[in-house]
């Protein structure tokens, strides 16, 4: 069996974001990057599937972006992926979901992957398009927002998260692509021996021009902060003063304190 996991590196979302010079995405100055949270579940599920099948499957992890994404790739290798493809693209942030999907699909089409895992969305863009679009371009069966995954005899039983805590259960024959939701499993922490082992694993660098054949279907006009509609009060300062102020406001504005 061959497994592909697609991951994205995203900024720490507790950061403060400022537009870049072109005003269409954030400036990377002062930002720390990490593996997209949804993709950590995708990596973990791929490794679990490999373990379930007696370590026979080979897992390829793929990431598109500048050299900084090698950090994300190394984490995935340390979590248990076998080899990596780094699609080298310093302008990945200017590509639309259709182009990103087409890069992945172009790589995947000759590889005969049986199962492809992606996150359900990225934390920074949140378009929730790339996974499904890859499946469409490859003609794979696809299910989204997985909170449960089981594999047996060439078929995946997927638990799909719907609104309000309800779940749907669907069966897909491989080859298939699934997009992973938060809580699907418990992503492991790479252990020191596995981090050392990962250093010997192959990372194939591929220039994006080798894989990108598609034009963008849409464009970003601007990146900006939301118009402030919050009319709330912002309180800062010394903790004991803050406590007194909050107590005062709650007495004044709510019926919960008397």
């Amino acid at each position, binding site marked *: 069996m061959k497994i592909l996991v697609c991951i994205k590196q995203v900024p720490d979302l507790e950061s403060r974001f400022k537009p870049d010079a072109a005003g269409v995405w954030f400036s990377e100055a002062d930002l720390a990057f990490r593996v997209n949270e949804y993709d950590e579940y995708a990596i973990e599920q791929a490794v679990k599937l490999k373990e379930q099948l007696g370590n026979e499957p080979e897992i390829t992890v793929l990431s598109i972006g500048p050299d900084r994404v090698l950090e994300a790739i190394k984490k995935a290798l340390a979590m248990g992926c076998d080899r990596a493809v780094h699609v080298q693209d310093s302008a990945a942030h200017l590509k639309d979901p259709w182009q990103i999907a087409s890069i992945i699909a172009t790589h995947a089409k000759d590889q005969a992957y049986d199962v492809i895992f992606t996150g359900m969305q990225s934390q920074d863009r949140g378009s929730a*398009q790339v996974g499904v*679009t890859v499946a469409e371009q490859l003609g794979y069966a696809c299910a989204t927002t997985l909170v449960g995954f089981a594999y047996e005899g060439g078929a995946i039983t997927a638990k799909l998260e719907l609104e309000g805590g309800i779940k749907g259960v669907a069966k*897909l024959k491989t080859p298939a692509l699934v997009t992973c939701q938060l809580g699907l499993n418990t992503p492991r922490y790479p252990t020191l021996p596995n981090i050392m082992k990962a250093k010997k694993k192959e990372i194939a660098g591929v220039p994006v021009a080798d894989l990108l054949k598609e034009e*963008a279907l849409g464009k970003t006009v601007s990146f900006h902060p939301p118009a402030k509609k919050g009319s*709330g009060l912002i309180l800062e300062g010394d903790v004991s003063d803050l406590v007194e102020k*909050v107590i005062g406001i709650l007495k004044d504005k709510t019926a919960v304190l008397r």
Partner: protein
Amino acid sequence: MKTLLIGEYRQGKLLDTTYELFGFAGQLGAETALFLVGTDSQLPAYGGTLYLADVAVCGEYSPELHKQLVLEAIKKENPDQIVFLHSSYGWDLAPRVAASLKVAQVSEVVAIQEGGYEVGCCNAKMRRTLKPATAQSVITIQAGAFEGVQPGGAPQIVKLAPAGASNVEFLGYEPAEEKGVDLAKAEIIVSAGRGIGKKDNVGIIAALAKAFGGELGASRPVVDAEWVSHDHQVGTTGQTVSPKLYVACGISGAIQHLAGMKKSEFILAINKDKDAPIGEVADVLVVADLLQFVPALTARLSQ
């Protein structure tokens, strides 16, 4: 301008959120037609054209079949925009339709702007304005961003029959877990977010909840990490609450969390990040380390 709106039907019911699509089309000033995999015994209050496929034949979750049906309606209607809700049904189906047509998709639109569509990004901290470069486009709209409008009337039905086979077999639904705590009845809820840092700190938030005489709530990561059980989760995939007082401790204010608590009468947020989007709904945002502020507030309340 012409829109084809993709309605939703689940567990035998036409979903009310379908009407939010008309709110969006209204703001766009566009003509409408509606598409639904549903039943003619439960028709939407809408006097326009309804492309209707029978759910008894097509199933509620059968993305390949639904995609083919939507494509057929698009062929007949030739809309400028095909509009979905950004829901588990919409974000699953919309990219399949967009890819088949090879047209731009704009996901989770929160507002219509002169130069394009505004969408959230960076966990709701920032916005982007996007513009499709294709003549036709696929749009998904954020739940609750456009107010529902019931156009009224009875639809002219165009029946669609499925062609082809599904490559996904739907086995059925699993109901939501039994609720141990009914947060919907609580007058005061104090919720823990990922900002509490570790499981051991749940006690600090629970103590504040107790001092207020309220219930403990939580954001999703706290539940996913199994720091508290799922019946405490507030949000789209948890419970929807509207207490007299909602206290959000270390919660950033992602849309899926806000959807579950923004109707609270009074919202107090504690966050070390002044720019956290929870500030957009909070009546008071206390910018502080919750590990210092929350115990101090608890102590003061317990005096």
